[in-house]
């Protein structure tokens, strides 16, 4: 910890440090870009992964907290805080040319806080309509519905974009631009489209059947969860996590609970930890089965979809018996889990892990081995390992590019360090590899379940927690491996019973960021399969 402090203060003497959950570096805005460039490019530092970008409103100033990770330095995480006092026209230098993942992340920050990023290529709103008045996550946002009524007319000037370019003298100039060229043939895919897995909207410039450029238009299910969370108590915000990535409900909730527990310094009973991990893995199986089904269906192999759903129902039965619901289980709570396991739990899990290998064989027979499926998925949607790191594509999609990024291995949390499982890696860098990682992860999840199902310790299912949960002032960032990648939760507390700021760093948000990169040069039909193999869940992106 101390050597990283030395190195950073040698590069940029103006910084100050704050200790906390992880090291926080206060960087003055004018120095930020050059520091970021050194952090990224210096081979000894090698902060190649931008884990999270959190916009903040500290009332007297606006700013951004960047969480940088160095994959070569044991995944060391350092936070950098950049703030500006100007509330009217706040500007921060963009780092989207260093970490491409910051492209969409900074657009999100602009959307919520109105912070303009200098040299960002495309400073449009991301989630809200382009005629939206105000920046909703600012503490002084005027929520009067008169300002932003339900508009039933379409958005105009969707093609217009703007960027703030800095010249050599340091003067910032506003440069308007267009997303597409005037003679591009733009096909609109979504928001109501069967294969966007929700309400994502892609605008694809095509040349014949070949895709030239994809513009991602998001926000068709943006519900403002982060703003809502600021007004609720900690136990109340838990239920939002189930409704973001509903296919990773348990993992997301696990992450948020673990983050709050870390802040409270709470020790979780062993039984609760085992139950949580088992539920996480069951959720992963259910999610990957759905992903298999949807990939098959998007390719037109409808029958395979039904086979995937057939096994998924078994997992849902297990959830229903213990948690009381098929989806949106609301099972993890602060300190443990809400209810004890159903007496049938062990029997059902055993039945599932017994049946899965033969069913996986069936899937491979019906779909994976099919020559058409192979031709449709192989060598399509190329994403190199460097790009995967730069765009922060974690989860099965990143591992399909040969990037070892499984949070359960790199930052072992809960009881994962004691378990024997393999991190699934494929090196094809194409849609087929991503698909295969998922199928093989089902096997690994079954392996984890098999280790735990007979070893669930007795004991309490919940730790004792105070009636009113208050976190001490400070900030915490916690990550777990959700079904689709690394899910992060950022909490900043000012000591009240509701959080000052909650940010959810969802894996799917980064996944759509590579749609343009992976689809360009392939065909319209490939756009669908690439999307299916990346497997994003839209409510997780929009939040």
């Amino acid at each position, binding site marked *: 910890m101390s050597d990283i402090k030395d190195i950073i203060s040698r590069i940029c003497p103006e910084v100050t440090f704050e200790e906390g959950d992880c090291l926080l570096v206060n960087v003055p805005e004018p120095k930020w870009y050059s520091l970021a460039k050194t952090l990224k490019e210096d081979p000894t530092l090698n902060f190649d992964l931008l884990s999270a970008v959190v916009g903040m409103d500290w009332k007297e100033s606006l700013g951004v907290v960047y969480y940088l990770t160095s994959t070569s330095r044991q995944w060391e995480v350092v936070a950098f805080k950049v703030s500006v006092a100007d509330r009217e026209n706040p500007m921060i230098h963009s780092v989207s040319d260093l970490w491409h993942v910051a492209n969409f992340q900074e657009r999100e920050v602009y959307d919520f806080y109105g912070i303009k990023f200098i040299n960002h290529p495309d400073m449009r709103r991301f989630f809200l*309509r382009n005629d939206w008045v105000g920046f909703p996550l600012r503490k002084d946002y005027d929520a009067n519905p008169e300002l932003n009524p339900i508009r039933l007319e379409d958005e105009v000037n969707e093609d217009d974009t703007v960027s703030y370019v800095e010249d050599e003298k340091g003067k910032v100039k506003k440069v308007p631009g267009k997303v597409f060229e005037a003679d591009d043939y733009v096909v609109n895919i979504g928001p109501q489209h069967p294969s966007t897995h929700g309400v994502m909207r892609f605008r694809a410039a095509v040349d014949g059947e070949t895709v030239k450029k994809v513009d991602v238009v998001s926000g068709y*299910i943006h519900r403002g969860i982060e703003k809502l969370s600021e007004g609720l108590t900690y136990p109340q915000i838990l239920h939002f996590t189930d*409704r973001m990535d509903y296919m990773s409900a348990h993992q997301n909730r696990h992450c948020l609970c673990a983050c709050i527990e870390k802040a409270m310094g709470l020790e979780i009973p062993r039984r609760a930890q085992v139950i949580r991990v088992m539920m996480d893995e069951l959720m992963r199986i259910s999610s990957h089965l759905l992903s298999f089904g949807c990939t098959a269906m998007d390719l037109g192999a409808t029958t395979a979809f039904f086979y995937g759903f057939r096994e998924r129902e078994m997992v849902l039965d297990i959830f229903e018996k213990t948690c009381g619901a098929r989806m949106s289980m609301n099972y993890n709570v602060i300190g443990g889990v809400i209810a004890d396991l159903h007496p049938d739990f062990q029997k059902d899990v055993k039945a599932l892990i017994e049946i899965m290998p033969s069913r996986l064989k069936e899937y491979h027979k019906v779909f994976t081995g099919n020559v058409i499926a192979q031709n449709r998925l192989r060598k399509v949607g190329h994403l190199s390992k460097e790009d995967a790191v730069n765009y922060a594509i974690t989860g099965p999609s990143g591992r399909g590019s040969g990037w070892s990024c499984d949070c359960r291995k790199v930052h072992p949390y809960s009881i994962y360090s004691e378990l024997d499982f393999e991190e699934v890696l494929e090196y094809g860098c194409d849609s087929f590899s991503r698909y295969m990682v998922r199928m093989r992860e089902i096997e690994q999840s079954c392996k984890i379940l098999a280790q735990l199902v007979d070893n669930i310790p007795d004991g309490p299912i919940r730790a004792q927690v105070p009636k009113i949960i208050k976190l001490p002032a400070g900030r915490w960032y916690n990550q777990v491996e959700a079904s689709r990648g690394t899910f992060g939760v950022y909490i900043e507390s000012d000591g009240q019973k509701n959080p000052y700021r909650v940010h959810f760093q969802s894996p799917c948000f980064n996944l759509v960021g590579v749609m343009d990169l992976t689809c360009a040069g392939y065909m319209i039909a490939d756009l669908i399969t690439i999307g299916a193999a990346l497997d994003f869940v839209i409510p997780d992106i929009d939040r």
Partner: protein
Amino acid sequence: MDVKIKSMKHEDFKDNEYIENLVEELNATGANVVVGKLDQLINWGISNSLWPLCFGTSCCAIEFMSLGAARYDMARFGFEVARNSPRQADYIMVQGTIVHRMAPVLRRLYEQLAEPKYVIAAGGCAVSGGPFKNSYCVLPGVDKILPVDVYIPGCPPRPEAMFYGLMQLQRKIKVQRFFGGVNRKEKIKDFFNSHPEEQGRY
């Protein structure tokens, strides 16, 4: 006039008064016998051939997929011909939260549906905004912009609940008049008169 749904008892439905009121309204206008029979035939056709428009925004859409999958199998009712083009669909089942950005899209999809068309609001978010009701950009229920025929509460509603909602829609269709009075169309017109597009506020 008794509204029958196969293998469901009358008392299995919880809001029989609503349907009875509709029937009474119909009797009061005195449907002609021949037209009445023809109406019954057409209503039988419509109610047994409800093709959904695929419109899922979040979690409820996954439950809708489960509804189509092998265990629940909505094909038994003839509902499985899910159309992706609104022109060919019969009803729009709003599954999930509708936010400000989506509202014009949803309204347009509704307008693109060919008559006779129906709306089902499935899930807490579509019914009332659900847990996101207080958000800055969430519609507190789709009935702010669309005339809703059936509400299915739940978060998300179980597939059984969706079947129940669909059966309620069938019951409602069975007492509508296609020729003559067209009580439905008038109600829709009233709705849009009270929700004019340019105001669009609630």
